[in-house]
């Protein structure tokens, strides 16, 4: 009996090709993406801002203990795997805005002979870079005075990075589930064909879905924002109207992607696979939870143009840097373009019956 139960359950499992992909294919794909493509033999690089220069570090360069590539001072960390810290000389304002965008985790300064590490200790990544760098420098020379300065100013904390990312992810999930998944379900139930058998114009269906999503994701964002304001004192530096407009562009992009995703299938198992296929890579690669600057530098131009990256980066810029249309206009344009192209493609492929 046990055998029959197991064998029938096993057959049901392996006869669902979508499930097979998610169980066997997807983990391997993810392992490849995160493990091989993005690490391989290359050392893992960490970029640290060096503000105001440092006589101590220059001395290390002169002694041949630090190498210099272009403007960057490079420190190879021994005994902790293949890690490379690049100290990049930056102006303070530039360093802070890079920190806010999540492009780097830590700022190093020399003040009166003392090395000051500035970062948000609540970010595990920042703490990791600090420990690496501090250990690496101490390996190279006798102990020197050093100090940690906690960055708790608004904009530079991990939570400041996280909140806009979560808002962007909310918009994505709302559209992919609320339009994509919902449409697949309509088709599966034959409700879609029943609805288009009425004189309802077909665009009305998509319009209603889109406006619903705009409404729901606005509500979602507002609640998250209120929460972040209450607990973390997060405020909106830039224009509220611009932020709304950016969100609208984001909704449009993901609505288009959702329609394309839902254009053919009537099978909800395949549907949930598609949902994961669209959302999972972006959740990892688009810098929602951690910056895509943790991936190798060659991938940044690609990753920063993923729709979720465009939206999250744009939201961060408006929220924490007070960015205006000039700074986020291109992102908005790209989002709208993505939305229109995918919507058009989705409509071309769309199976109504």
């Amino acid at each position, binding site marked *: 009996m046990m055998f029959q139960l197991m064998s029938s359950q096993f057959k049901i499992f392996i006869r669902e090709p979508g499930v097979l992909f998610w169980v066997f294919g997807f983990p391997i794909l993810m392992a490849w993406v995160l493990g091989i493509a993005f690490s391989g033999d290359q050392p893992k690089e960490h970029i640290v801002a060096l503000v105001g220069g440092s006589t101590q570090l220059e001395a290390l360069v002169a002694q041949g203990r630090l190498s210099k590539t272009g403007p960057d001072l490079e420190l190879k960390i021994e005994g902790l795997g293949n890690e490379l810290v690049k100290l990049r000389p930056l102006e303070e304002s530039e360093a802070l805005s890079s920190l806010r965008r999540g492009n780097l985790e830590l700022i190093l300064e020399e003040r009166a002979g003392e090395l000051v590490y500035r970062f948000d200790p609540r970010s595990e990544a920042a703490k990791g870079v600090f420990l690496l760098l501090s250990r690496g420098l101490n390996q190279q020379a006798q102990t020197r005075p050093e100090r940690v300065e906690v960055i708790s100013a608004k904009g530079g904390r991990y939570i400041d990075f996280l909140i806009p990312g979560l808002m962007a992810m909310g918009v994505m999930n709302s559209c992919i589930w609320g339009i994509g998944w919902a449409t697949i379900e309509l088709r599966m*139930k*034959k*409700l879609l*064909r*029943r*609805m288009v*058998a*009425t*004189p*309802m114009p077909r665009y009305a269906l998509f319009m209603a879905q889109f406006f619903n999503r705009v409404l729901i994701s606005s509500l979602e964002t507002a609640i998250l924002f209120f929460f972040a304001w209450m607990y973390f004192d997060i405020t909106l530096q830039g224009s509220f109207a611009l932020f709304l407009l950016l969100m609208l562009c984001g909704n449009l992009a993901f609505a288009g992607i959702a329609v394309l995703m839902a254009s053919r299938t009537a099978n909800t198992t395949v549907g949930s696979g598609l949902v994961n296929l669209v959302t999972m890579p972006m959740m990892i690669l688009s810098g929602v939870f951690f910056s895509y600057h943790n991936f190798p530098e060659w991938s940044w131009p690609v990753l920063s143009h993923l729709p979720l990256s465009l939206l999250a980066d744009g939201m961060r810029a408006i929220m924490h840097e007070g960015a205006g249309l000039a700074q986020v206009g291109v992102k908005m344009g790209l989002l709208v373009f993505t939305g229109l192209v995918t919507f058009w493609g989705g409509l071309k492929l769309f199976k109504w*019956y």
Partner: protein
Amino acid sequence: MEPVIRLQGVTKQFGKLTACDGLNLEIYRGQFVGLLGPNGAGKTTLVEMIEGVQAPDQGFIYLFGTTWKDNRKGLQGRIGLSFQETRFFDKLTTFETLNLFASLYGQPAQRAKDNLELVHLGDKADTWAADLSGGQRQRLALGVALMNDPEILLLDEPTTGLDPNSRRDLWEILKKVKTRGTTLILTTHYMEEAEALCDRILFMDHGKFLADGSLTELLSGMGLTEMIHFELAQPLDKTSLPKELLGLDWHLDETGRQGHIKVESVILSLPLFLDWIEERGHVLKQLQSRRMTLDDLFVSMTGRGLIESP
């Protein structure tokens, strides 16, 4: 009179399978047409082509003299339909579902209320669609199909899988709809459904129409409309039959003990049969006589499931 539905040489193929094979048909206003046939006969394909969901490979379909290609919007407003199985939004109530479709057809909310009563779901107005029984769900689908007070109503197996009471309930609603002058095409594989509702019956098998007419026309077309079923203790010896009985349409099974005779009139033939049984000393184990039904007719036309003739 101009037919409301006209098919001209309609053919539809799926790969090697010909679902509809050069069909010609005219249906007139107010007719209730039953499309009967076994599974795979091509009924659903035909209905979906009339619904405009599928397009024929060859031939033409005219509704009110126009085609789906020429006037989709116009036709959608005049046609009501219900697919073989439609599931509605699980968490919309019966009334909300009807109200949604009322708006899609450009009808006021009052129409949703009217149809709620028409399909006997008044007491289920606030029930979620997920909680409706099979029969109630089919009545909801019918309520949706009738939303635009359609001139043509197309129902694909509306009572398949329903219990007899739910089935009869649906028939009562359709009889009420008939008084409005609606034209109906209904597919079914329940012969009694066609007998109860339809004034015109089309037999379909292998993508072709086998017969077309009213119930009485179809049955009387066979000439012999009544049957005597019997079972004997010993095999029957036909050679000793009197010629009045020998000329009838006999069907015996392989044991020779069971079978039926198709007759013009049981009243005339039964006494002769019984006399002969007694004369030969046969022992009757069972005897039944009845009018022929559409089932008998269908079986005799397709040859399927027929008791082998001796």
